[in-house]
């Protein structure tokens, strides 16, 4: 037995060492992004144009903002199915209040934030006070948000005041133009990376996701932290909604219908465990970019639309498999 084990260890030691380095620095998602980028560049050299890089960032930004909230929730061992439709509700509140009800456009945006954070509070209260599973709670609030959105608006709301579409404004960089929306998610990610790493709140989030009972015994106010996480997630859903308004130039009640799964995909590809307690929020950003790069790359290389979905599906499974393998090797 011992002999066989040793033999296996030595024959796979090189692979092991490479895996160890990748796993230790959590480089898997980042490497995948580079490989994907290189692949699409070979397929169509226009992929690497600054214009196209700018487009990928614009296309990814609002999902990436939603994925910040989703990462926080998943790190606690929860999941949020409601985020895309809560975001849609936020966008129609922001825009209808300003355009149809004559509310100051900036206050309208504040109202949108208020609504998405209220949904976060509702999710948090139901999960902590009534001890309901997050999956079921957010499935319920998903439908509530959908219906409320339709009660507010059924068609897109245009002719928006400038302040509402500010994230669609552009600045020139690297010989092309970037929207503010494409850029603003980066400092947000760095901020949350810092918060999760350096603050008591951040360490509590990981502790709760790792083992809720142990966290409680250590004196961590589990329920309060969980509620804060869902409210904070709601804040980032409104950010995502505001970015989307800037991107498409209108409030769209049809927006965000698949954003819950898209944001979960970004989190999972980014290496965060769906069981909670383990993961890095910067990985989520890379995960969102990987999805964006694949959609963009497959479209500009002219791949059949059905295969675009097929490949995205395979991508998720490969990402989770890689993560599990690197976990096992580290142990």
């Amino acid at each position, binding site marked *: 037995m011992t002999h066989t084990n040793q033999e296996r260890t030595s024959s796979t030691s090189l692979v092991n060492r490479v895996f160890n380095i990748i796993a230790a620095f959590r480089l898997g998602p980042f490497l995948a992004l580079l490989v994907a980028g290189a692949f699409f560049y070979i397929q*169509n050299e*226009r*992929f690497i*144009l600054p*214009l*196209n890089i700018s*487009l990928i960032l*614009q*296309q990814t930004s609002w999902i990436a903002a939603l994925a910040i909230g989703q990462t926080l929730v998943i790190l606690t061992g929860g999941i949020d199915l409601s985020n895309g439709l809560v975001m849609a509700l936020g966008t129609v509140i922001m825009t209808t209040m300003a355009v149809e009800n004559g509310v100051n456009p900036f206050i309208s945006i504040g109202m949108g934030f208020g609504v998405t954070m209220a949904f976060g509070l509702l999710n948090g209260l139901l999960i902590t006070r009534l001890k309901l599973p997050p999956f079921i709670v957010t499935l319920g609030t998903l439908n509530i948000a959908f219906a409320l959105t*339709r009660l507010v608006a*059924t*068609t*897109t709301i245009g002719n928006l005041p400038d302040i509402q579409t500010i994230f669609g404004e552009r600045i020139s960089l690297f010989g092309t133009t970037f929207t503010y929306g494409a850029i603003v998610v980066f400092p947000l990610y760095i901020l949350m990376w810092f918060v999760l790493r350096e603050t008591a709140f951040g360490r509590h989030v990981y502790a709760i996701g790792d083992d809720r009972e142990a966290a409680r015994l250590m004196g961590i106010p589990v329920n309060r932290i969980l509620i804060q996480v869902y409210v904070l997630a709601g804040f980032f859903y409104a950010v995502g909604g505001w970015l*989307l308004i800037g*991107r*498409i*130039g*209108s409030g*769209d009640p*049809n*927006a965000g219908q698949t954003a819950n799964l898209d944001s979960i995909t970004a989190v999972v590809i980014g290496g965060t465990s769906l069981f909670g307690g383990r993961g890095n929020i910067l990985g989520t950003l890379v995960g969102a970019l990987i999805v964006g790069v694949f*959609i*963009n790359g497959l*479209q*500009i*290389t*002219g791949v*059949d*639309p*059905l295969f*675009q979905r097929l490949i995205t599906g395979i991508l998720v499974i490969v990402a989770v498999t890689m993560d599990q393998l690197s976990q096992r090797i580290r142990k």
Partner: protein
Amino acid sequence: MASLGVETIVAAIQGGVVPTGYTDTGVALITANPVDGVDSEGVGYGYENCWGDQNPEVLAMAMELEGAAAGMMSVEEMAAAIADLGEEVIVGLITKTETNPFFVKMREGAQAAADALGITLLTASGQFDTDNASQVTAIENMVAAGVQGILLVPADSSAIVPTIEWAREQGVIVIALDTPTNPEDASNALFATDNFQAGVLIGEYARAAMENPDAAVIALLGLPPGITVNELRQGGFLEGYGIDMESDQIVCVQDTQGDQTLGQTAMENCLVANPEINLVYTINEPAAFGAYTAIENADVADDVMIVSVDGGCSGVEGVVDGRIAATSQQYPLRMASLGVETLARFVITGEAPTGYTDTGVTLITANPVDGVDSEDADFGVANCWG
């Protein structure tokens, strides 16, 4: 008169028979409200045989009016006949979703017709566009509720067929609206837009309006392969434009799911690969608006023509402000009101409807071109849904 005259002269030359006397070339009484004892024809017959320029819209309306008068019955007379039946007449309307303005308009049309006829309308819908299971449940529940007929917008043309067959075995008439069942004769009748014709109109328009149509570089922003409505509209567009899918002019084909955000992303990516695109077919107006935002951001809005299909009110706004060059407008309200009236006539006369009825489509554009019939944006706004 003239044809008869020419034929007579030809006959005279050939046979040496000189025409004499008076020949009656016929006269018919045309009315929408026929009375006993006086022979007459309906307005559809009248308009079909009239002289002067014909307006196809008016012809469609006239044929519809005549259809309603068949069996000598106006809406008021049908309402009276239904009141005389002494039993409740119930019909059902099942749409794909409750939220799409197209189906909202359909429900308005059905409700208005039901109110005018004094019959009860039940409504139901799926949760999303391809929600077959909810439609199966809805048909079962409506048959259980005792409906005499069902108007159905099939979410899945094939999967719903066994349920329709079951409903028909229970004596219920099923009319498909907007989307045919597969096979088409699984339902008693189909009232729908001719989506292929809708595509042909924007294709012909684009060919006439483009400065150099044979050099146009084309993007197709549609739905996934195999979705009937896109195959028809896109196929019609290509036919009207005079090319096919193999044409080198088509450089980008994308799935937008009919969604504005996805339409924008698709158009942005198409432009990266092919910045010279200058003609865009879109499956509907939300996709068209997404495409417009993309070309506007790329500073090529003035060089690119976008054509679309649907004619929803927000879509027609795009024609007014120039984002969409032309759109083919369809008429969901007419589909539903015609459907309810047809079911009512079935209850009164026992005549089951059959076959396909085209509910009409009109090209709406602010910049008409020679050789392609169109209406202006005012007409589009007056007749839009949503």
